[in-house]
């Protein structure tokens, strides 16, 4: 009867609020043996202590990760948090990953809920990416970038990614009490962990974002540049200098480690070109003060 007991306990600690009078229905739902049901009923208040402990640990972990999202959504967040616990629940051994699981659960639901501000998921993802990147595995080993080879890809630090938002959430105030909504503006950021283990944010132009996404995916420099120019309507020839400057900057920052060992295939054709706008990467962190001690972690 262990599976029945586990299902019942899972619902007890993660499910909807429960009164003593609900226990019989819970036991029936999970085909709990009568003596186990009676044992749970005999110590019902103490099981509510477990419920409180479990939910407090999980909520604290999420609040550490996305405090501004929680502050701005208020009761609406509580509603979705309870729904997450009830319908999906954490499935990771790592407390630091619970927020990502929650946001994956909420993403489609928030998109359909008019009560949720359209920028909420962007803000939550932007807050959460701090822990995701700061804990991403793979040590950074710096190597000189050397000569750029168009036929080869690049090696990046393991903790690096391009994120895209529809709102300029990276410019929002770090003040949890601020309620100013973000500007609706397509936003692309390069987020990486530097050699000091600090997470850095660089604002990118659409072309730079498209280029870096492809390079991170393993495409050769030539293929990535042509494809990025194609999707952004940029002139590949005019983009070359900017590309070289961008990659040199990222190399200097330790985010690009050097050329990849082998050439990557596939060179998509360029479309009609416009002037390349490959803005130099620019530090844009609004996460100052979001120190390492803020990462949720297990306590024994």
């Amino acid at each position, binding site marked *: *009867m*262990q*599976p029945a*007991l*586990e*299902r019942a*306990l*899972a*619902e007890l*600690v*993660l499910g909807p609020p429960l009164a003593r009078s609900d226990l019989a229905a819970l036991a029936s739902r999970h085909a709990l*043996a009568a*003596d*186990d049901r*009676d*044992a*749970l009923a005999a*110590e019902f*208040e*103490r*099981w509510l*202590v*477990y419920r409180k*402990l*479990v939910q407090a*640990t*999980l909520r604290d*972990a999420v609040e550490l990760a996305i405090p501004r999202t929680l502050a701005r959504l208020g009761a609406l967040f509580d509603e979705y948090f309870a729904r997450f616990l009830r319908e999906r*629940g*954490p*499935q*990771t*051994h*790592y*407390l*630091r990953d*619970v927020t990502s699981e929650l946001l994956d659960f909420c993403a489609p639901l928030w998109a359909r809920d008019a009560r949720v501000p359209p920028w909420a998921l962007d803000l939550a993802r932007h807050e959460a990416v701090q822990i995701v990147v*700061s*804990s*991403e*595995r*793979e*040590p950074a080993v710096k190597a000189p970038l050397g000569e750029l080879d168009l036929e080869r890809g690049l090696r990046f630090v*393991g*903790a690096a990614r391009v994120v895209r938002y529809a709102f300029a959430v990276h410019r929002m105030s770090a003040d949890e009490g601020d309620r100013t909504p973000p500007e609706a503006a397509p936003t692309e950021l390069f987020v990486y*962990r530097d050699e000091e*283990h600090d997470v850095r944010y660089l604002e990118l132009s659409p072309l730079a974002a498209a280029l870096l996404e492809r390079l991170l995916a393993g495409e050769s420099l030539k293929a990535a540049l042509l494809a990025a120019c194609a999707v952004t309507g940029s002139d590949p020839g005019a983009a070359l200098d900017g590309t070289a400057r961008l990659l040199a900057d990222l190399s200097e920052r330790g985010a690009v480690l050097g050329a990849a060992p082998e050439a990557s295939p596939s060179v998509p054709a360029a479309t009609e070109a416009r002037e390349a706008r490959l803005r130099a990467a620019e530090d844009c962190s609004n996460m100052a003060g979001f120190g*390492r*001690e803020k*990462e949720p*972690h*297990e*306590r*024994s």
Partner: protein
Amino acid sequence: MDPAPRATTSGVGLGLRWDFLEEVLDGPDVDVGFFEVSPENYMRRGGYYPAALERIGRRYPLVTHGLTLSIGAEAEPDPHYVAELATEVERLGSPWHSDHLALTSGAGRVFHELLPLKFSRDTAFRVADRLEALAEALERPVAIENITYYAHAGRAELSETDFLHTLFERTRAGLLFDVNNLYVNAENHGFDPFARLAEFPLERAVELHVAGHTRSASGLLIDTHGAPIVPAVFELLAATLARTGPLPVLLERDNAVPPLAVLLEEVRAVRRVVEHALAGRTPRTEARRAAGA
């Protein structure tokens, strides 16, 4: 079955917490026998914390104490988790690994909290078999900790201590005996912890834990690890050591963590109790005096 050989780490250790990690990392040597760490906070990841722990491991013995194995669940322990754990305990050179006699996941959810196991023969057998498999996977001795249980998970077929004896008949694993957990359970369930102590299979103990707890508004003691050790727990520690002989002892503090200097003073108090107990003095009175109570 024969117990696992005792590992070499000894003395009074301290649970390494991020609240004072940088002070340990960058400061002068601190007088602890070892640090105990929760591997989940350092494994399957990169970045600052694993790098910092590696540096600390060059200066102090480290012992791993896991939290999410869920050894008593119906489902086998997550093989990905166990594989990552094996890598981590090897990286840290932990002489043994321990986890809790608990249900930390079930029905596809991870609770991130130590829920009690049903004290049944089936559960004891299941846990024992899994401890054997875990020791094999980690290639080192393993131990399991008696937890605080505020309630029983279904109808208990066995007492906690009978459950432990049943379990240890089938495994070579050690017992990580948490003295504070015995005290908290005794208070919450209304039994004499000193009398109950005699029933525990302490011949299998490989490590002891001590910590503080908090009384909730309802009167229930909660194992918060958020307060100093109370004198009665020091007395229980002394009584335990009088039975076990020398064992590594760990001070845990997870909430309301005071400055490191305060924790180190508590480590010294624990050490005084250990020394007095092992010197064969009357445990209950000497423990109080040694702890400065």
